[in-house]
Structure formats: C-alpha cells, structure tokens
C-alpha cells in the first residue's frame, strides 16, 4: 500500500518535495491556496544572480509532479493528528488521511503600504519588487521613459517598527538584479539603490554587484526616510548618505520598494490548528537549528522552504529535497516494520 503524504503549499518547496516524494513511490497530495502552482516564483520574471527566467525553473518543477494529486484554490480547512496519521479536511470537501505532512507554506510579502512614509498606494510611481517583476514579466515599459529610478532595500526587513527586525536575505540581490535590468531597459536613466548593508553573500552575487556598479548604478548607503510628490507628480525622495554623513534628496520617477518576507498567513492558520510553535520572527521553529532542520515538534510533520525563515531558491530546493529524505526515513521507520 502506498503511504499518503500531504504537502501544504505549491510553491518551489512544495513542488520540489512532491516531485522527489512521488519519485520515491509515495502517494503525494498537494494543496495550494492559489489558482496556480508556483507560489511567488510564478509571479517572478527572472532570477538572480544569473537572470535565469523564472518560467524555466517553474516548468522544470511542474515536469516533476506529473504523478502528484494537485488541488489548487484549496485551503486546509482543518487538520489534526490522530493516532499516527494526520486527518486533513480540504476546502474542496476532500478529507485526507496522511501518514506524513510537509508544511511548505512559504512566506507572504511584507505589505509595503505599512511603511506609510514611502507612499505605496498613495503615489503612482511607488511600486514593490513584485510589481516590478510583473512589469518585466508582461514586457511592459514605462512611458515616458523614466529619468530616474530608485530601489529601496530593506522595506519591512531589519525594521522593528514594521515588526520584522530580521533580514529577508534575498532583497539585496533582487534589488541589484532589478536595478541592472532597469538600467538595461532605460540606459539614460539614473538608477539608485538605497541600502543599509549590501548582503551579497551567495556565489556570483558579488559579480552582480560589480556589474551593477560598472553599469553606473549608484549605491547610496542610507535608508530612505520619506517620499513626497513634486508639483510635476514625480517623487522627491529623502535619505541620508551615511558615507558622507549628509542628508540627500533626489527626484525620481519610480521608486521600487524591496518588500521583505513575512510568515505566511495561510501557514499560520495550519500551524495554529496543530499547535506548532513559531519563533519571535513569526516563522515556524524547527526542532533544532542544525540536525533536525526539517522536523517540527510533531512527529510526522515536516517543514521545507521559507516557512521557517527567509530563504533563497537554492536553499529552498535543498530543504525540499532533504525534507523528502526525512519523510521517507520517517515512513520507513514508523509504517513499514
């Protein structure tokens, strides 16, 4: 008999783990709340550091889940742990008895409008990183061509007032990537990146940074403090250039806010029903930080991806694969004796 495994979340982590598990011969059921699979990846245009089209990666993921039962637009209405298995009721009326559950609920983007001073939703020219990706993805261009564009790193990250003192890990590289892409589209435009610290930690990320510098993108070490609209409807942006120790202002046509990662609300809903513990940052806590990263405190419930904190895509894929291994081991130890 094939063991049922429920995967909650159809983003990169959920998809990759489902693919591996289904290759291992498990009966994988995947529940995704959105209409389409892929999570945030499906909304992205190109990926850092080498600008691989997101679609390529997503197509690769979807190829791997041919044998997985996918329910889209499906919430987990209730879930509880029976004797050894989990009983989950999905919003489409299906009830599943799963021997193991993988929670891959990922993250929600920080709501940029919470940073009132940046004027997201107030000023026409202010947008988020996700909006920008959508613009790229749809091949739209701004008209008239912008003369100046700014990217604000750490929007809703490293910001206690916004409720998230932690770093979201991916925004720096995303900002630099989008800055380069913007500069390529509008070579005449002045492109600015307002950063607090540039966290270009991954392989090839520093190359991306150097590439941006050589393209003439200006990096200003300082956080944007406020945004205002000029009489022509452009954006007057103020920050401190901390390297000069002086306040700075510049008029921009577009301001792109690098909204950070917040714990997924849908994930929390599942977590509350199972009494899963979250840490101070709102993300789920693993059993420990080194050897049992994929395990929750509940036997049979595993984590993969950004539900345990901000991660890059490669990190997420590693986690998905190791979660599949953990689940396999768990099933073999507990159900096949």
């Amino acid at each position: 008999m094939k063991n049922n495994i429920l995967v909650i979340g159809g983003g990169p982590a959920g998809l990759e783990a489902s693919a591996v598990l289904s290759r291992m011969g498990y009966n994988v059921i995947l529940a995704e709340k959105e209409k389409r699979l892929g999570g945030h990846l499906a909304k992205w245009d190109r990926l850092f550091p080498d600008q691989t089209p997101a679609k390529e990666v997503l197509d690769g993921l979807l190829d791997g889940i041919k044998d997985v039962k996918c329910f889209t637009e499906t919430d987990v209405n209730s879930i509880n742990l029976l004797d050894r298995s989990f009983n989950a009721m999905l919003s489409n009326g299906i009830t599943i008895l799963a021997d193991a559950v993988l929670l891959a609920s990922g993250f929600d983007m920080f709501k940029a409008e919470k940073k009132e001073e940046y004027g997201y939703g107030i000023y026409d020219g202010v947008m988020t990183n996700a909006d920008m990706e959508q613009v790229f993805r749809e091949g739209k261009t701004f008209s008239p061509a912008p003369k100046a564009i700014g990217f604000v790193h750490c929007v809703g990250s490293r910001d206690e007032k916004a409720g998230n003192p932690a770093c979201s890990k991916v925004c720096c590289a995303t900002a630099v990537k989008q800055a380069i892409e913007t500069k390529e589209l509008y070579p005449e435009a002045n492109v600015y990146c307002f950063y607090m610290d540039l966290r270009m930690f991954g392989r090839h990320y520093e190359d991306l940074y150097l590439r941006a510098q050589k393209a003439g993108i200006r990096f200003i070490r300082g956080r944007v403090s406020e945004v205002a609209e000029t009489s022509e409807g452009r954006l007057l942006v103020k920050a401190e250039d901390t390297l000069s120790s002086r306040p700075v202002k510049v008029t921009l046509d577009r301001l792109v806010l690098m909204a950070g990662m917040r714990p997924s609300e849908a994930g929390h809903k599942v977590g509350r029903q199972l009494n899963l513990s979250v840490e101070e940052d709102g993300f789920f806590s693993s059993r420990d930080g080194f050897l049992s990263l994929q395990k929750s405190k509940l036997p049979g419930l595993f984590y993969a991806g950004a539900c345990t904190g901000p991660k890059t895509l490669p990190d997420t894929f590693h986690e998905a694969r190791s979660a599949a291994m953990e689940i396999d081991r768990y099933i073999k130890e507990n159900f096949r004796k």
Partner: protein
Amino acid sequence: MIDFGFSFSPSSRINLDKADKEKFLSLAALEPDVLKCMACGSCSASCTAGAFEDTSVRKAILSLQNGLSDDAVKLLNHCMLCGKCTMVCPRGINTRHLILSIQKIYGK
C-alpha cells in the same frame, strides 16, 4: 534690504538632481574604475597624507557622485600620490591616476 542680524543657514542636504552627470560620465569614460568603489575605506585608512589632513579617495568619489566636486577636489588636495591606496584597494582601482584625472577634470 533689511539686516535682521541673522540669515539663512546653508543646507547640508545633497541634491542629486543637481549633480553634474555629464562631467561625471566623462570622468567615468576616462576612469571606469571610479564606478567600482565599494566604500570599504581602505584607501583613507592607509593614506599617508590623511595622517595630517582630511584626505580620502572614497569620500572624493562619493562627493563627485553627489555633485560636490569642490569637496572632492579638496579631499584630494593634499595627496602625495604615494600609491598606498592603490596597493590596498580590494577592487583594484587605479587610485593614483583617478586622483590625477579628478584633479584635472574638476580642479580649477
């Protein structure tokens, strides 16, 4: 005009809208290295002249990007071209020639 005994205090704010982009581009065409600075400050830290006077390639580059060319020239005014900054720059910027070019393009 009336003298009230006080007058405007000059603004310390950098106005990027007023930075001379053309001039900076002409510098960057001559010295592409100017774009590579990541503001680590090694140059200023090792500067021979900096032991006596405010001298910093990092700040000068930044001042130019901020359109404050007078400040930039002032920051390089005491340079003895000893080359320590070139030696220590992690990005391999040819600071000595950059300094000469800044002095030639922006100096009076």
